[in-house]
């Protein structure tokens, strides 16, 4: 019970506030079924924060912590992007940016049996769902949804993948559509966002893919209007760049990787 260092606080006062590991959130309204989400741990009648993040609450009984990290903590029912790094007789070994490798059973595909195991090479990118995630054991994945159908899970062909933080991935998946994605013509590209911070983009031309990936990476700390402006700037620069052969773009942002000369 090392969390005793911080004074116990009312749960309601901490909603939408930043908490740090060890903060105790007590005096919960008495609920029968407390649903504890990621980043929180229940200790008898106390909820302890395990990470730095914002405490969120949804009526009547759901509590969770929203934080942004470069590494991923697996939690059940998350949809993520994994890379195949190995294989044994029963499972594919998949890297999901967490502390241990995840296991994907070779039969966890639609209509999968021991006779028709898909041929996944080392380095294949997969869109998977987390089935089991306990601390201490390897997480387990599946390429089917709960009813056994494929539902867009499985290997991704072509396109380009890049890494970002878990917070950016969540922002991109939020509703209404994130401004940076809104700024592009949604018909002209495909995007798959993994909650572990991996993002896959595909479009008709490589320059479009490069544009989208750089815009997304640069948008993490920008506000909605800033994002729209940034995308407009980048598209304009790309038009002029295509007509010349030199020159590139600077975006003034922490995670910008697109550079520029005047």
């Amino acid at each position: 019970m090392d969390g005793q260092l911080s004074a116990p606080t009312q749960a309601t006062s901490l909603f939408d506030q930043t908490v740090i590991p060890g903060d105790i959130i007590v005096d919960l309204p008495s609920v029968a079924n407390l649903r504890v989400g990621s980043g929180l741990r229940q200790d008898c009648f106390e909820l302890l924060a395990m990470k730095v993040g914002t405490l969120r609450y949804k009526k009547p009984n759901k509590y969770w912590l929203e934080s942004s990290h470069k590494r991923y903590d697996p939690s059940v029912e998350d949809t993520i992007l994994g890379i195949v790094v190995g294989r044994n007789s029963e499972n594919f070994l998949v890297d999901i940016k967490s502390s241990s490798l995840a296991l994907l059973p070779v039969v966890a595909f639609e209509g999968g049996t021991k006779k028709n195991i898909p041929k996944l090479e080392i380095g294949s990118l997969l869109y998977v769902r987390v089935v089991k995630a306990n601390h201490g054991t390897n997480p387990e994945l599946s390429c089917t949804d709960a009813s056994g159908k494929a539902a867009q899970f499985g290997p991704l062909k072509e396109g380009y993948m890049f890494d970002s933080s878990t917070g950016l991935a969540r922002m991109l998946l939020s509703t209404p559509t994130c401004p940076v994605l809104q700024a592009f013509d949604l018909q002209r590209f495909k995007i798959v966002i993994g909650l572990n911070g991996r993002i896959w983009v595909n479009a008709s031309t490589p320059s479009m893919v490069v544009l989208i990936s750089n815009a997304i990476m640069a948008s993490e700390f920008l506000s909605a209007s800033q994002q729209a402006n940034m995308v407009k700037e980048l598209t304009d620069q790309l038009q002029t760049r295509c007509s010349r052969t030199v020159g590139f773009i600077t975006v003034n942002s922490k995670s910008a990787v697109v550079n520029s000369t005047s």
Partner: protein
Amino acid sequence: MEQRLANTWHMTINEKKFIESALSKNIRVDGRSPVDYRQLTIKFGREDGSSEVQLGETHVIGLVSGQIVQPYRDRPNEGTLAIFTEFSPMADPAFEPGRPGEFAIELGRLIDRGLRESRAVDMESLCIVAGKSVWAIRVDLHILDNGGNLIDTANIAALAALLTYRKPECTLGGENGQDVVVHDPEVREPLPLIIHHMPVAVTFAFFNEGDAMVIDPTHKEEAIMGGRMTATLNSNGDVCAVQKAGGDGVSLSVITHCLRLAALKAVDITSKIKNAVDSYNTARALRKVKRHNALVAPDITVPDSVMKGNQIGQLAEHQAQKFKEESTKTFDTETVVGIPKETVLFNKKNINFIRKDSDSFIGGPSNWDPYSQSIPPTFVRSSQIFPGLHSSS
């Protein structure tokens, strides 16, 4: 084995194919053109000879230190230069602590060759007593973050550190005039190294069996490149070193094209390094001016304050008083090799004295200039009596 798999960095087939196909159309994934460098930032530490260079996401620190040693027998009047690299495991999951790997040694050798074979650093000026004492200059390069193209970044860090390093002044003294006396930097201004020219390394990566070439590859581009070539040139266009260790073969026309590009890039990078070093030297000189009348090393971030004329006089008198007391207590004969003891003591005492007395007196060079206001006679006298005090240089 599984833990090692979990901790290494993996590249997908998708990324590999995409980067290669984009490069065949001269498109790079970070939006640069194939011949552009990433943003270069050169910063310096407080001490002379420490530099911090960032090229995009790659981050390297360079540190230069000097020691007096016996020279090699076959070169009795030349100093020595040695490059050491440290690939910190925090830079890349592939770096292991302990003995340097093959690439670490190659990097060190490449930078060493660029500096030594082209005689960029003047070795004969490092000699103190021929055959007995010379300066051994050591450059330590610490890799903090591997974002690709460590060679160029480490080379710039080494150059920036060497250009800002100052070695303490030495004279011959002692009983028989043969012993080397190293003067404290507070007493005599340390001297910069003599650098004749700046050999700048430019790295090229080849893809698609020599069809595509880029300058300054990022970490992902390095993972899929077919071959790499580094050309070290100076701004005059002299080729100091060329290194191509294995990988895909390239035709002669490609190599000459790369050398021409490298010459242009070398000019650009040389001017950036020169600008950074110049602004560092200006800041350093300003710090020295402050120290001249404060006799203490202030923080550059401390705000300037206006110093009135009578304040200078009062303080000088006060200082003279203090030093008289100190000298009667702790004066010690200068030791032959090493820092004179009483100088250090004086400086320490100064610091305590200044700090607790008045925060208002931290001389601002923008407001106090030794030539516009007259220096009170007491101040001049005190500086003459006590040679340990920092004399105007």
